[in-house]
């Protein structure tokens, strides 16, 4: 067996039988020389692909077909509510991470004396530079996120966007709206002021009245049947460790499915 490689694709022969002009021959020779080294064909494919993506002509949508653009644009902000809640979630995550540098969970005896959690909140609100703005940003973005999520659900309902291929995403959305409210509730308890304490009291009573698993749920979420240090600590861990991972993952899934299936055609 000889070491000389066989030329399966006899480009030189092909060029000879093609009766090319000088310019064409020089061009082709250069191209083949470069292609042999860099395999330009692959990159050409990418370029071609990009060309088609840039000059992608959309099929006519229902909105265009029936000339509904005026109505569609009028209602458009309602179609952006999902993005609104996502961006509010991102803002809350960033401001929450910054708040986490200064906040510490601690309930004390809950006898009217300010405890650790309450003191750190007071510190953030009064002493820390721009601390009041940070907490305010966190709280407002959370409120706005919940509002946007509720309105998003109403929009989806009234435009029938939950129908046939999208049932699964509707169910995921229900899980998300519930998780958002749990997020809000756990955050509501963290300052450990009067409102937080008594909202926690209601929470314990609610979970105790769940049939069969009530006591177990109360132990798991609130760390006992009465509010104590472990309640604040558990709420803190749920709020800053467990829920962020879960909710971020579920949001990614939710948006990924929307991305795959496309926006339900509004009309």
């Amino acid at each position: 067996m000889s070491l000389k490689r066989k030329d399966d694709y006899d480009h030189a022969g092909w060029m000879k039988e093609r009766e090319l002009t000088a310019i064409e021959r020089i061009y082709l020779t250069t191209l083949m020389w470069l292609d042999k080294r860099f395999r330009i064909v692959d990159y050409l494919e990418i370029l071609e692909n990009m060309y088609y993506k840039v000059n992608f002509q959309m099929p006519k949508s229902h909105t265009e077909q029936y000339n509904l653009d005026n109505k569609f644009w009028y209602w458009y902000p309602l179609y952006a509510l999902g993005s609104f809640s996502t961006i509010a979630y991102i803002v809350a995550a960033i401001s929450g991470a910054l708040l986490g540098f200064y906040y510490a969970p601690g309930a004390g005896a809950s006898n009217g004396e300010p405890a650790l959690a309450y003191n750190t909140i007071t510190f953030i609100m009064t002493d820390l530079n721009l601390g009041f703005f940070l907490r305010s940003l966190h709280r407002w973005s959370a409120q706005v996120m919940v509002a946007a999520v509720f309105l998003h659900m109403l929009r989806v309902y009234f435009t029938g966007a939950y129908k046939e291929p999208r049932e699964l995403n509707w169910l995921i959305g229900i899980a998300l709206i519930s998780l958002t409210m749990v997020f809000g509730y756990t955050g509501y308890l963290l300052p450990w002021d009067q409102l937080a304490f008594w909202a926690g009291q209601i929470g314990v009573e609610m979970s105790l009245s769940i049939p069969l698993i009530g006591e177990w749920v109360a132990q798991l979420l609130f760390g006992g049947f009465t509010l104590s240090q472990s309640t604040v600590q558990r709420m803190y861990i749920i709020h800053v460790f467990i829920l962020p991972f879960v909710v971020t993952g579920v949001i990614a899934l939710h948006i990924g499915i929307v991305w795959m299936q496309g926006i339900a055609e509004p009309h």
Partner: protein
Amino acid sequence: MTEDTTDADTDEDVRTDGSGPGIVPPDDETPTWGERKTRREGLARLTYEYFERARSEDQELRQESSYVERDVLAFPTWPHEMIRNLALVSFFVGMIIFLSAALPPHIGPPADSSSTPAVILPDWYLYWSFGLLKLGPLNPDISLLGGQKLMADRTYGVLANLVVVGFVAIVPFLNKGSARRPVEQPFWGAVGMSGVVFAFTVAVLSVKNLVPMDSHLLFDLTFLLPVVSACLTYAVLRSMREGYMFNLNRRYYRLRPPK
């Protein structure tokens, strides 16, 4: 002919210690990837067969479609939706920043287990759930049990929450079809409106000691208003639909008999 020789060769020469010809170059004996797939059995084979069917189905649909006038099931998320959303979202973030600079939150007195405040409330978005906890009067007491209630009022309230969420969850399995506008389905529009109104009325019920109204009247209104609003919505949507149908069919009415 070739098969026989290769078979004989491989049988003789291949050894487990790696000596001999060892790696055999692909020849006619080596199955192609397609053949490997078709040789599979059980679930893997089923999956493969189904994917083949789905692919050919897509292919046929694509060949049948006339492309330009075809009905579109969805807008692509990128770029249409995202670009417009990004523009709106930047205003939205500005709004959040403005709100939080202008209205910093209040911080109440520290937790005190010995003094119950007059008003205990969760955040506003939990009012509806809080109101469902106060549906005690609806909890049936059965005469067979001697006027005993079947379950505690609180348990009943927690279950009411589950029922509401469960109903919202099964909506896509009850309401199918391609209708998108509320006008097309007045019934489901009415159901939605009654749900929205019920969320508000039950939220008001949750703060009934703050509402200057007889609590029995408030309780009755909580359930009456959603029904009333459902009827109203149904009537409005139905009449709107009649209007649309008239517009659609007007050409029909205008036809004159030929002279």
